């Protein structure tokens, strides 16, 4: 019987949410292709994180002192060994920064190409095709492997719903890869956080967020006026903070803050996945964008298709009028 193998990422010993989403994707894929589901995670077999992986019928604890800190070389070597033992049909990963770092190397070592950042799949008559986004979400592509197994896939955050964790009923097998310290060429140091944030967007009830559609630093004032009229906090997409037009601490997204306000008003923001993961928990999303096909409209409750330089001043005036 063929195997779908899912690599989960652990934080403090527990599988991360996106890892559980990847596990759910793996379970779906296994049932669509008549395969068994196996899960693997770095850690010791008696670690608590393994006890909730009941969806899998085989569970492997990748246990080795050289895996205590993530390195691309260590993880690649360990995964290659488990894959060559299990000979899975499909290998799934959560599309995290770690996976982005080592999975392409792992795939290359196996003579394969990772199908990255997958949002869905279709299986019919033994052929599985995977959907992934191109042009920052403006286009979908259907991809498939043209080589023998294994086919390697990473799964986008939020694309599959994580199942409620179920208790593990199978024995967790410890898999000790053969690793050589000299083959690990990078020396990582402890992760650290940037200086304490002075703006906490995560508790703001109203947020007006600005993207590259604003074109010029001087135009930010237009957005600030709207935010002031609404009594909202000002936030931005990454390119605005990269350019130094607003401080880094106002950046929303995978490398910035995660927010969940009652109102998120996105102005001139296209809606790339790295931005969406930071704000899609908002209760109401409003988007102003001149491109009716901008991906932000995928998740917006209300939209205005138009030139922000006309719409925003009109909106600021209308809000002021409504507030009296």
């Amino acid at each position, binding site marked *: 019987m063929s195997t779908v193998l899912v690599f989960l990422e652990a934080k403090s010993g527990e599988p991360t949410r996106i890892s559980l989403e990847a596990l759910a994707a793996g379970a779906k894929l296994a049932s669509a292709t008549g395969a068994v589901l196996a899960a693997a995670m770095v850690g010791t077999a008696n670690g608590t994180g393994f006890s909730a992986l009941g969806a899998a019928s085989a569970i492997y604890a990748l246990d080795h002192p050289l895996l205590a800190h993530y390195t*691309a070389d260590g993880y690649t070597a360990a995964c290659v060994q488990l894959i060559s033992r299990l000979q899975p049909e499909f290998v799934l990963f959560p599309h995290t*920064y770690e996976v*982005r*770092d*080592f999975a*392409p*190397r792992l795939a290359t*070592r196996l003579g394969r*190409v*990772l*199908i990255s950042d997958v949002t869905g799949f279709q299986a019919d008559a033994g052929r599985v095709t995977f959907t992934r986004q*191109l*042009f*920052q*979400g*403006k*286009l979908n*592509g*259907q*991809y498939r492997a*043209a080589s023998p197994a294994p086919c390697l896939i990473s799964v986008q955050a939020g694309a599959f719903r994580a199942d409620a964790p179920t208790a593990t009923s199978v024995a967790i097998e410890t898999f000790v890869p053969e690793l050589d310290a000299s083959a690990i*060429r*990078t*020396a*990582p*140091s*402890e992760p*650290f*956080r*940037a200086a304490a944030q002075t703006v906490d967007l995560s508790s703001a009830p*109203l947020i007006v967020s600005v993207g590259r559609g604003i074109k010029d630093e001087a135009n930010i004032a237009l957005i600030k006026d709207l935010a002031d009229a*609404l009594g909202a906090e000002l936030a931005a997409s*990454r*390119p605005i903070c*990269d350019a*130094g037009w607003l401080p880094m601490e106002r950046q929303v997204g995978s*490398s*910035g*803050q*995660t927010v969940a306000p009652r*109102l998120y008003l996105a102005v001139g923001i296209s809606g790339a996945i790295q931005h969406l993961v930071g704000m899609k928990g908002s*209760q*109401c999303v409003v988007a102003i964008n001149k491109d*009716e*096909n901008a*991906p932000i*409209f*995928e998740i*917006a409750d*209300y*939209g*205005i*298709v*138009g030139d922000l330089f006309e719409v925003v*001043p*009109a*909106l600021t*005036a209308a*809000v002021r009028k409504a*507030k009296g």
Partner: protein
Amino acid sequence: MKIIVAIKQVPERDVRIRIDGAGRWIALDDVEFRMNESDAYALEEALLLREAHGGEVIVLSAGPERVGQTIREALAKGADRGIHIVSDTLADYDALGLARLMAAAIRNEAADLILTGLQSDDLGLGQTGVILAELMGIPHSSLILKIEKADTGLKVLRELEDGWFQHIEMPTPALLTIQSGNTKLRYATLMGIKKAKTKELRAVPADSLGVAPTPVVLLDSLALPSRQKTTQILSGTPAEAAAALVEKLQQEVRVL
């Protein structure tokens, strides 16, 4: 330090997405092209390193003839020379095939450092650099914001999720994929543009590199995403749309 920077030419940001006749790529008539965003930051890092430590910056790009313009732009910003892997059928290669072409074109350069962007803005694979590192047999690190020379080789700053960072040390030769945003990008000066015309730009036909396009992953088809959520579009003049939105914010969202 001898540094190679891989630069991809991609469609302009506001490009209208229409699928072409064959259904395998977007229609490119009337499309303007630019340097991939994270690659521009990779180039900037390379130029800063050369200014600090001396050496050479070589730009590498694969694509049809028009890619030459983007290489010239990098030369105008200060890169020393360019290598252009010329191909009109690059889409026949997958990321592994492309990285094999790149590896074959630069193997004899014996560079100390190879920089790529984190991710291309069109295909968005986020992989080509890491694959190239494995093919070259050198260590890598991705999502890099800052590069410093260290006794042992390099000390780099890697971006992690949710505002976390990490330093990593590694020996050279190494490959780094560069994340956008850490530095201000320079503009090409008039002098730079003039000088670029005289700099070496070597054209290497892809089919001279001995790499067959035998993809292990295929892009079958493309489609515009179908709307999942029904967004209420508020239409009319800007003033009408604004008034309609204010009403929604008052009556339904209740935030006004």
